[in-house]
């Protein structure tokens, strides 16, 4: 049956949900194999220590322990993949799955113990005797580049890994001559990503064939397959990686982890299936962290606040090793220190620094929340300096609306944009006037609970691709295309195989929507397969808001190939030349006689029996495509936040939050809004609550879910989401921009600007992140010590 109903743009209910709602989804930890043994990793309690010896003999005496291995017991074919050498002279210390010479962060693996049960493996791990010589540790990114700091990788003689920079225009001249220069310093505190599913791995070796199947809670089965072949020497053709249901990633599962290589290597040694599941507290040490930058942000402007130049110097904490895309993570935000604004000159410099901390890598937004923090907060500082309203300062500096790709001063060719439109829409939804009146009344009354309003009019770049750009100027080792195959069964049901690996976003649903529209079938008749390298052999997986922006066009392109072949068969069966039929209302129809038609299911059946195919047309109906975009995509929007800050306790509450985002074509409004809401709340948590902190010895203090402040339902507000404008991307034919990361990119500065606005009567102009009660109290105290305003 052909259908004229279009699914794209509809809030189609998710295909994923019935199984997830009934406990029938299978995550890695839900899987078991007969004969399976458990792995436990022995981790360094010290942030920095020389490993003098590792003795596993006592572990072998523990009942139920099968084997135990130190780092020296493994021969690796190569280190864990580090795929983004951003500069030619970057210093990269190869990261082996277990440390042998030094432990370089608390949690660095030094040995593994294998037991018949989870408990036996853990008991055994406690019996491994490691002789450490503790060394001084450095965890702070600024301290790490001080003369005399402990050196993480001795051979380098420095903790600086690389400095990447970009300059557009006459920066020094502009800054020297500018009437106004604001200079701000921000610390973007370290975060623990906290996907609710802990990482888990199960490896099944086939001793006869030499094949290995690894189930892993990963975002990147395809990348992982290649990386595991490089690390273990197992031929890639004998490796199958399966990411079954994955319980969230937020970048933390966009990684090639030591435990994955270890589980494979141990399975190879023991010829037994191996399982490893991290405990949450272990994950706080062993799963990569995010953010952790110190930013120096300057804006040069004229007396009216018209921006002339942008200059940012960034110190980025890489942790103890450079992980898969860690050096490039800050570079993903490097083109956005100008936000959505115009200027004549632009400079950004990023220095990546080793420290004795858990490696830092992509966390939802990856580099762009950091740059957006800098520019959006500095815009408020500029407004304060020149005495302009924070809305006016943004409006007067916006790039004017454009529908064809346009160059920004930050060096991006932006697909399309209309920045004033989202700001106008957000203002309309928010009712700023009413809150300003309330704010003034409380200020006049010297109320202990002050109100603040904060803005963030962000721009971002995402939809990770295109291959020639990311592999060219950006020096990334991987590709940025996506693959899709569409296979039509004889009964008219369709399978879509995608190389993207959705892990909660709803990709299964939107890919089915697009395929159904493109083939004129029902969305219920489409199954979407992914996350298994034997089923979906080609792909670059899901991160960087690429699932919709790169994955979906690949599905559409595969569908176009199916239609291209189906057209020949349809014309043959209707006994007319091909140019006499057209694709309309979900079927091939005779021009002028649309009731004479052939649907895809009808053609699929003919292609399967192959009784009457036209000459030269092969049996079967399927199509494959590799979509490599021409450019990234550039979502934008305006977020407005109102907070109430208790000036006596320092506690901040978000009263109201409006998010207006332009993500181009909206495939499924319900899912897109879900992405925005989830991201905004995660960003509010970053702004107000969360921080991964180390003590002076390098112990992670916020070391588990009980003492790291993940907000619960009572701690966060409802978000009002709007997508009233659609500025289609010119990067793909569907007009899609990404949406997965907009929330965490936009929201932290909106919240922080609101906090500073609330405290303005107390003379506060700066707040440390997170704006916790303690940091609010410090800000008030510091402002009063320097003779700030009275309240």
């Amino acid at each position, binding site marked *: 049956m052909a259908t004229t109903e279009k699914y794209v743009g509809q809030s189609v*209910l*998710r295909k*994923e*949900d*019935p199984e*997830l*709602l*009934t*406990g*029938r*989804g*299978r*995550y890695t*930890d*839900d899987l078991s194999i007969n004969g399976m043994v458990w792995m436990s990793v022995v981790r360094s309690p010290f942030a920095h220590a020389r490993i003098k010896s590792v003795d596993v003999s006592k572990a072998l005496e523990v009942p139920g322990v099968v084997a135990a291995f130190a780092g020296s017991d493994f021969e690796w074919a190569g280190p864990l993949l580090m795929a983004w050498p951003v500069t030619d002279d970057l210093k990269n210390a190869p990261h082996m799955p277990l440390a042998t010479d030094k432990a370089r962060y608390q949690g660095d693996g030094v040995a593994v113990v294998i037991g018949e049960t989870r408990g036996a493996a853990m008991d055994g791990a406690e019996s491994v005797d490691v002789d450490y010589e503790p060394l001084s540790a450095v965890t702070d990114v600024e301290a790490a580049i001080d003369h005399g700091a402990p050196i993480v990788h001795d051979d380098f003689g420095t903790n600086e890994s690389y400095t990447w920079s970009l300059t557009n225009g006459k920066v020094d001249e502009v800054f020297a001559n500018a009437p106004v220069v604001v200079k701000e310093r921000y610390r973007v505190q370290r975060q623990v990503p*906290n*996907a*609710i*599913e*802990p990482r888990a791995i199960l490896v099944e070796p086939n001793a006869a064939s030499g094949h290995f199947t690894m189930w892993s809670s990963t975002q990147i089965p395809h990348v992982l397959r290649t990386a595991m072949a490089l690390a273990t020497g197992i031929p890639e053709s004998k490796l199958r990686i399966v990411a079954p*249901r*994955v*319980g*969230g990633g*937020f970048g933390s599962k966009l990684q090639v982890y030591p435990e994955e290589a270890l589980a494979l290597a141990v399975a190879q040694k023991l010829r037994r299936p191996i399982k490893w599941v991290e*405990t*949450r*507290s272990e994950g706080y040490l062993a799963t990569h962290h995010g953010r952790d930058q110190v930013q120096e942000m300057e804006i040069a402007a004229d007396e009216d606040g018209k921006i002339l130049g942008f200059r940012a110097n960034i110190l980025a904490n890489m942790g103890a090793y450079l992980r898969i895309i860690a050096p490039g993570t800050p570079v993903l935000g490097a083109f956005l220190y100008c936000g959505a604004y115009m200027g004549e000159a632009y400079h950004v410099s990023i220095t990546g620094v080793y420290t004795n901390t858990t490696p830092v890598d992509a966390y939802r937004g990856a580099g762009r929340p950091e740059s957006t923090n800098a520019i959006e907060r500095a815009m408020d500082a500029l407004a304060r300096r020149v005495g302009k309203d924070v809305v006016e300062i943004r409006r007067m500096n916006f790039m004017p609306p454009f529908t064809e790709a346009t160059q920004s001063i930050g060096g991006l060719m932006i697909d399309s944009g209309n920045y004033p439109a989202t700001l106008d829409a957000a203002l309309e939804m928010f009712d700023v006037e009413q809150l300003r009146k309330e704010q003034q009344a409380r200020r006049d009354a010297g109320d202990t609970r002050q109100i603040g309003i904060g803005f963030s009019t962000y721009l971002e770049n995402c939809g990770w691709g295109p291959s020639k750009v990311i592999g060219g100027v950006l020096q990334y080792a991987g590709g940025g295309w996506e693959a899709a195959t569409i296979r039509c069964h004889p009964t008219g049901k369709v399978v879509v195989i995608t190389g993207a690996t959705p*892990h*909660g*976003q*709803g990709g299964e649903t939107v890919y089915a929507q697009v395929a159904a529209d493109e083939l004129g079938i029902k969305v219920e008749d489409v199954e979407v397969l992914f996350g298994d390298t034997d089923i979906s052999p080609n792909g670059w997986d899901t991160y960087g808001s690429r699932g919709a922006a790169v994955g979906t066009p690949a599905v559409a392109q595969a569908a176009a190939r199916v239609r291209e072949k189906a057209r020949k068969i349809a014309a043959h069966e209707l006994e007319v030349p091909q140019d006499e039929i057209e694709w309309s209302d979900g079927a091939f129809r005779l021009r002028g006689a649309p009731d004479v038609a052939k649907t895809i299911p009808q053609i699929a059946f003919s292609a399967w029996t192959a009784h009457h195919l036209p000459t030269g047309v092969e049996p079967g109906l399927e199509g494959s495509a590799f979509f490599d975009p021409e450019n990234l995509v550039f979502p934008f929007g305006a977020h407005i936040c109102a907070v109430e800050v208790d000036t006596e306790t320092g506690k901040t509450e978000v009263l109201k939050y409006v998010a207006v985002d332009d993500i181009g074509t909206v495939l499924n409004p*319900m*899912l897109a*809004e*879900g992405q925005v*809401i*989830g*991201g*905004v*709340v*995660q960003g509010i948590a970053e702004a107000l609550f969360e921080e991964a902190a180390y003590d002076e010895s390098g112990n992670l203090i916020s070391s*588990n*879910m*009980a003492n790291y402040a*993940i907000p*619960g*339902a*009572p701690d*966060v507000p*409802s*978000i009002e989401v709007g997508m009233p404008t659609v500025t289609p991307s010119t990067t793909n034919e569907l007009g899609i921009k990404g949406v997965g990361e907009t929330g965490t990119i936009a929201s932290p500065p909106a919240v922080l600007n609101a906090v500073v606005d609330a405290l303005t009567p107390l003379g506060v102009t700066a707040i440390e992140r997170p704006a916790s009660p303690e940091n609010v109290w410090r800000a008030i105290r510091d402002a009063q010590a320097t003779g700030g305003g009275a309240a």
Partner: protein
Amino acid sequence: MTRTAVTVNGELHEAEVEPRTLLVYLLREGLGLTGTNVGCDTSSCGSCTVLLDGESVKSCTLLAVQADGREVTTIEAMAGPDGELSPLQEAFRRNHGLQCGYCTPGMIMAAAGYLRENPSPTEEEVREALEGNLCRCTGYQNIVASIMDAAGAKV
């Protein structure tokens, strides 16, 4: 080893368990009911929430032997025999109250337990009731909306 007799989803299970076995591991590894998830080791996340004699409880905070002689209900028993979703599960689907799905069984069991106590809660009461259940995907908003919807309240 200790002999334990627990009624799980209406069926009596007798098992020999190590005294240190947590209820969640009896469910997951002993009985193969893997719908109940483990998300932390500090009883913070609530992914493992089940009903014990009709009241929601984190199954990582109880030893299996403490459930002896009692009735446990897990996510597997929430849908009808033919797989049709319960009104609460339907509401989660309709309101997009889940993304990755990992916290979802715990959220649904916590909500089911709460709605039995308070069949027509306010939004604020629902938020308070969910305090012990963490979600990293949804920002809670649509979970709250789902529960309000299921309670028959105006969302």
